[in-house]
């Protein structure tokens, strides 16, 4: 409860973790607010069905609040004026000159605040992925503020969890992105860091995942626990194994 998990990928694609968390929390009965900035709803729906969860059903019964970034952006730019309906678009920072993500935060807060009839277990905020906000014109400070507000609202007040995906690269030239990633790393309770293998491409082992439990944040003078596994992605699931012990080798 109240945990902030950071999904970080380097030189590979960590979105399989997003799919996992989405189906995991939906199956656990939590109320999920998914800010999907990079892909369309049908993409997540198809993958979730392979993992055994139906997103359309979850949306209908109110368990899932899905913000499809691509569609929102189009409505914002090409929508007609009469579509105001009193609620500003969550992505309105794109068209305004002030880069502040308050509208997005309000959207998140309203969707996760429990209404009287809700019987879901804790709220969860899932974001895929945060680096896109920079491409759309938000400043790093605005993005960090947004995350901070979300943490206060979701983790502290509502006792929910947050899972965020970011991309990073060791020799990246994108300083704004690196700033955000480093800052988030310091504040996270759990970091799942997916990397490509240092030895290059391999057909049987798709990469390695480093699991860092930030025990040092609890002020008990312990170091962070770091575990490293390698993984291979298949059509419907992902297999994890200890380093060097992939099925292809044994």
């Amino acid at each position: 409860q109240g945990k902030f998990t950071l999904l970080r990928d380097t030189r590979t694609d960590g979105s399989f973790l997003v799919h996992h968390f989405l189906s995991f929390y939906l199956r656990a009965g939590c109320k999920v607010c998914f800010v999907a900035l990079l892909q369309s709803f049908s993409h997540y729906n198809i993958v979730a069905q392979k993992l055994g969860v139906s997103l359309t059903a979850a949306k209908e019964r109110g368990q899932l609040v899905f913000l499809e970034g691509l569609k929102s952006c189009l409505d914002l730019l090409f929508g007609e004026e009469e579509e105001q309906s009193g609620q500003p678009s969550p992505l309105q920072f794109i068209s305004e000159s002030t880069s502040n993500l308050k509208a997005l935060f309000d959207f998140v807060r309203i969707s996760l605040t429990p209404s009287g009839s809700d019987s879901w277990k804790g709220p969860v905020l899932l974001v895929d992925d945060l680096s896109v906000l920079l491409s759309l014109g938000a400043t790093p400070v605005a993005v960090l503020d947004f995350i901070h507000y979300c943490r206060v609202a979701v983790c502290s007040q509502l006792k929910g969890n947050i899972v965020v995906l970011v991309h990073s690269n060791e020799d990246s030239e994108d300083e704004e992105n690196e700033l955000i990633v480093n800052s988030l790393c310091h504040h996270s309770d759990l970091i799942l860091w997916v990397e490509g293998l240092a030895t290059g491409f391999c057909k049987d082992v798709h990469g390695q995942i480093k699991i860092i439990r930030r025990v040092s944040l609890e002020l008990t003078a312990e170091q962070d626990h770091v575990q490293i596994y390698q993984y291979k992605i298949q059509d419907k699931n992902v297999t994890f194994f200890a380093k060097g012990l992939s099925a292809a080798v044994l």
Partner: protein
Amino acid sequence: LVFTEEDKYGLYSNLLFKYFLAEGVVCGHDLLVASAKEHPDNILKELPAPLLDETYRNELGEETTAVKSEDFQDSMKIAWRYQNLPKMEASPTTSTKFGHYYDVSKTMSPELFQSIKWHSFYLPEELSLQPEMKTCNVNSAYARLLQSIQRIIYQEGFDGSNPQKKQKNILRIGIQSLGSMLWGDDICSSDTPEDIHSLTKFLYVLRGLLRKSLSACIITVPAHLIQNKAIMERVTNLSDTVVGLESFIGSERETNPLYKDYHGLVHVHQIPRLNSLICDVSDTKDLAFRLKRKLFTIERLHLPPDLSDTVSRTSKQDLAESAKLLSSGCGAMAIGKKHLDF
């Protein structure tokens, strides 16, 4: 969304661009061509003519039969274990037919254009037409192009808005040299451009439009001119497929014996991972292209046999670079950061 990094002089990426459009014509798709440099009519006049099945097979057949007849007789003496392995196919086999082949020495005949509907967007013309419209902080040329694309998608029903229209078709969009100065964007000319986010915002909105409708898009960008590499990283994140073409013209690789059969390299930086957890990765990552008299082919890069007198290859640095090339992969799968020294 196929994102192509242009080679230095734009020769080969232009060719790839025309192939995409020509395929659209042959398949009966609608086309939308946008350019700030050349008038789309001229681009369309220069599309390569499709090759009929028999002629292509003959071309390919000639080469392989020549090779086969030679070594059919000898059986291997020293490396006899290798004899049982199948011969490596340098170019894709013609057994699975996907798409068409084109003859670059001939242009497409105008009759083929009659059956399809095509739209064009030529920036100098568009600028003089309409007055300023709301731009949402995007470069005005990009904003116009987006408006244009959205209007065509909506009017022609590619996003399902007119269900009782004729049968569904696909819109192929080709945008040439995006990000160059001709589009009014200064990311290619200065280190700290005025509006860093124009190109990325444009791509995001375009991605939304493509996802919402039955269309596919190829964009060519002069990536070597963009000073700010952060933009390239963000752009890669926003595209589905990223392919880079590196031609050997004018670089020291032209005379390098490693690459003597080829005109350039194809770097596949990213392949789409849509609707599933994994993507379909081919076995090999090293691809090179060459432009023969009639065909433009992309093949696996194989090093020619080392028949020189010296024991090791000429320049170690070159070898190191090519080894780095051989170990790099595309973004969806892992990329190694250092090569192993053998």
